[in-house]
């Protein structure tokens, strides 16, 4: 492998933002036909490195080579025309347009007089979609597709050019297992064709499955490149966080207390039917199921964002009606929502103000917001969750993806709720912090909080929950206790198999 010319090479890249040295002289190369994984903690500089490569950011110094030719990437379109395609951490599609229009956005095939050649557009797109095995056509409207399918559209976009290198920044964060397999097939396919692939993810098992080499970034510098076949998770983790990770550490489980929260026969048209469960103080209840099983919709109903058609919600034995999040918050319910960018954060606001937003009314001295009280809360959760930011004044939009997620979690922990609902809490979070968040959830339970964890990651629910509710198509199939649950029975329950025994 050493004698081939790299498809892509970065030399001594330095990139600073005000108050942050995001990249401190990083060198990195991708060979044609290899999958090169890029690993590092939240805020290590992975996305920044790839944005430099993709022409989104200009480096302060350093050089980019494509097949050993130095190049300057002034913008993403230019990068793409040079064969470097970027599939972003956050999706960037025009939701009102069709799949075909999105795939060829900015470069629609033309006929004479500049008219769009719709026939060719659809034919070309259909050919690419076939290769991806997508299950939707070129005419579908992007806004109506699931997140996973939108991701496919992003990938389809990458395949329109003769790519030399394709960069995937946390592509699987919102994919189901089946969709993940399709993605891996695509990646293997690209590799066969001699495309160099950069793969960023926080999921070790994926990285060990798919990659040929692993490079580790830490605090903006390159800590080493390992050959996947010759290393193990432990070595990688040590490079990444400077120590081994003890995943077995577990906060002692306490005996659950009184019923804190009870849901009876909750239904919502077309979303979920007849959902009943109870949750005790000090208990963590996991909701596991496929994307689209109705878990998020239940959470939103319990937070007053949707009106149920029927059913009752009881808090500490009293029936409550939740008309809005204002009601839910007043009753001590918090929701860490599924989508940090759309629902969780005001990206243009600073870190501190985002964390204190739900309780700003209470953080006052006289009529004014108290700076001191706010900063105290921010400091507490920055330390607790290890949020990397130069100061509380930093705009949340400038934080790395994982650190943004930590801000959302901190914001709702700071409310000290009786019932905490978290929807995919560790999406995009590095292994170290993930363990920390799991511990935190257990610890909250030990302090008497009742917690609902919605997750599509089986290890997560198995690790953190006392009982697991398995959902399929808007219905609860079965509730497992942590003693009786097995991976097989869980998989069966969420795919609707063995429905008869479910009652």
């Amino acid at each position, binding site marked *: 492998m050493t004698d081939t010319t790299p498809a892509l090479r970065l030399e001594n890249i330095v990139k600073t933002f*005000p108050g942050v040295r995001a990249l401190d002289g990083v060198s990195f190369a991708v060979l044609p036909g290899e999958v090169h994984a890029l690993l590092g903690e939240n805020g290590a500089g992975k996305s920044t490195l790839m944005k430099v490569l993709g022409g989104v950011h*200009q*480096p*302060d*110094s*350093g*050089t*980019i080579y494509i097949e050993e030719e*130095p*190049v*300057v990437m*002034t*913008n*993403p*379109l230019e990068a793409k025309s040079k064969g470097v395609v970027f599939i972003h951490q956050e999706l960037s599609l025009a939701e009102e347009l069709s799949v075909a229009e999105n795939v060829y956005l900015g470069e629609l095939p033309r006929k004479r007089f500049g008219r769009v050649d719709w026939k060719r557009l659809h034919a070309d797109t259909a050919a690419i979609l076939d290769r991806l095995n997508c299950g939707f056509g070129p005419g579908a409207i992007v806004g109506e597709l699931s997140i996973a399918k939108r991701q496919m559209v992003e990938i389809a976009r990458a395949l329109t050019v003769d790519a030399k290198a394709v960069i995937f920044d946390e592509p699987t964060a919102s994919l189901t297992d089946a969709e993940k397999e399709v993605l891996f097939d695509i990646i293997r396919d690209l590799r066969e064709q001699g495309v160099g692939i950069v793969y960023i993810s926080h999921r070790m098992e994926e990285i060990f499955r798919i990659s040929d080499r692993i490079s580790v970034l830490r605090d903006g510098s390159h800590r080493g490149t390992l050959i996947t076949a010759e290393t193990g998770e432990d070595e990688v983790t040590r490079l990444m966080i400077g120590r081994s990770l003890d995943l077995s550490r577990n906060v002692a489980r306490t005996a659950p207390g009184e019923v804190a929260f009870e849901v009876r026969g909750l239904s919502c048209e077309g979303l979920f039917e007849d959902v009943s469960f109870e949750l005790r103080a000090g208990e963590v209840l996991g909701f596991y199921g496929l994307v689209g099983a109705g878990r998020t919709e239940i959470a939103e109903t319990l*937070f007053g*964002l949707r009106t149920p058609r029927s059913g009752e919600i009881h808090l500490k034995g009293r029936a409550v009606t939740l008309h*809005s*999040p*204002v009601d*839910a*918050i007043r009753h001590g319910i918090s*929701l860490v*929502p599924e989508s940090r960018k*759309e*629902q*969780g*954060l*005001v*990206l*243009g*606001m600073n870190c501190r*103000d985002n964390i204190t*937003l*739900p309780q*700003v*009314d209470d*953080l*006052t001295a006289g*009529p*004014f*917001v108290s700076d001191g009280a706010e900063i105290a809360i921010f400091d507490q959760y920055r330390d607790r969750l290890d949020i990397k930011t130069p100061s509380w004044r930093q705009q949340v939009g400038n934080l790395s993806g994982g650190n943004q997620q930590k801000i959302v979690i901190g*914001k709702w922990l700071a409310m000290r709720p009786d019932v905490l609902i978290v929807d995919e809490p560790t999406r995009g979070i590095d292994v170290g912090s993930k363990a920390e968040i799991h511990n935190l959830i257990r610890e909250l339970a030990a302090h008497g909080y009742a917690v609902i964890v919605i997750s599509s990651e089986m290890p997560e629910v198995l690790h953190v929950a006392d009982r697991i509710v398995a959902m399929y198509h808007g219905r609860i199939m079965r509730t497992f206790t942590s003693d009786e649950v097995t991976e097989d029975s869980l998989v069966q329950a969420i795919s609707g198999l063995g429905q008869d025994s479910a009652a």
Partner: protein
Amino acid sequence: MADVSASDGTALRSVGAFLGRHGIVVAFGLFMIGFALTNERFIDMDNILGVIRSSTILGVMALGVTFVVISGNLDLSVGSMMSFSTIVVLDLHERIGPELAIPLMFAMTMSLGALIGFLVGYLRLNSLIVTLGMLSAIHGLTLTYSGGQNMDIADQQATWFSVFGQGRVLGIPVPILMFVLLAVVLATLLAKTPFGRKVYAVGGNDVAATFSGIPRARVVFMTYIISSFCVATAGLIQASRSMGSQNTVGQGMELEVLAAVILGGASLMGGAGTVFKTVIGVLILGFIQNGLLLLGLEFYVQYVVTWIIIILAVWLDIAVKRGRLWSPIA
């Protein structure tokens, strides 16, 4: 080669970072120096005070619209609403005297603001459509009220009403004092209170604000109440300054007000802007118009120049954010 263009981008960006924070103040300074060098009457104290005083009506309205714009909406009704309050207060003055006329006029103007706030906040109607409609609806209301007649205060010696437009306290014109006082109060409200924080949150991301338990509708409603309060104050100053008025006294001011707010750096997308910067925006607009007059240009040239300056301001804002002057992508 790579390094050269890379460092170019960085230089522009660090200049940009500074301008981004203080750009409007710098531009204002440069602008004042420029005019002062070309025309000595420009820095004459009387001239400066004159400009400030003639900017107060625009300024008072811009303070309120700042709240509306930061929360992510528009208010194009302020011009015709100002005509309405001017006509109403003058007419009521003649009927029931100033003591009752003023509070009644405020109540009437603010109920128009409440109507807009209800439509945009609670019914979630588009603010452009609602306030554009209100622009002409209120104009119609004003004409109906006045019967198309100009309003005048008949016996100008017998009333203290002129104090708001023409009075002085410690030598400082009352309208300027009212403008400064209102600016300080509203700046504090926006920057220091929970309500102000919510205005930014709703404008920055209304979904996330809702998910954070912020009552979006109520916040938007309140911004229009504030805006209409400011309009009523402007109408009071206007009426008291001239002690008489046409039905169209505020016509076209909505765009000037919006220009001042944007010039001050508030984003039309919502979520950004401050009261202080709006004040600077108002002064820039005032001094530009004054400077052009002193240069001997016709009055109406200012409309064109104002527009050019707004375009420049918006473009510079975007250019600084992306760190380069032009880019093929957004």
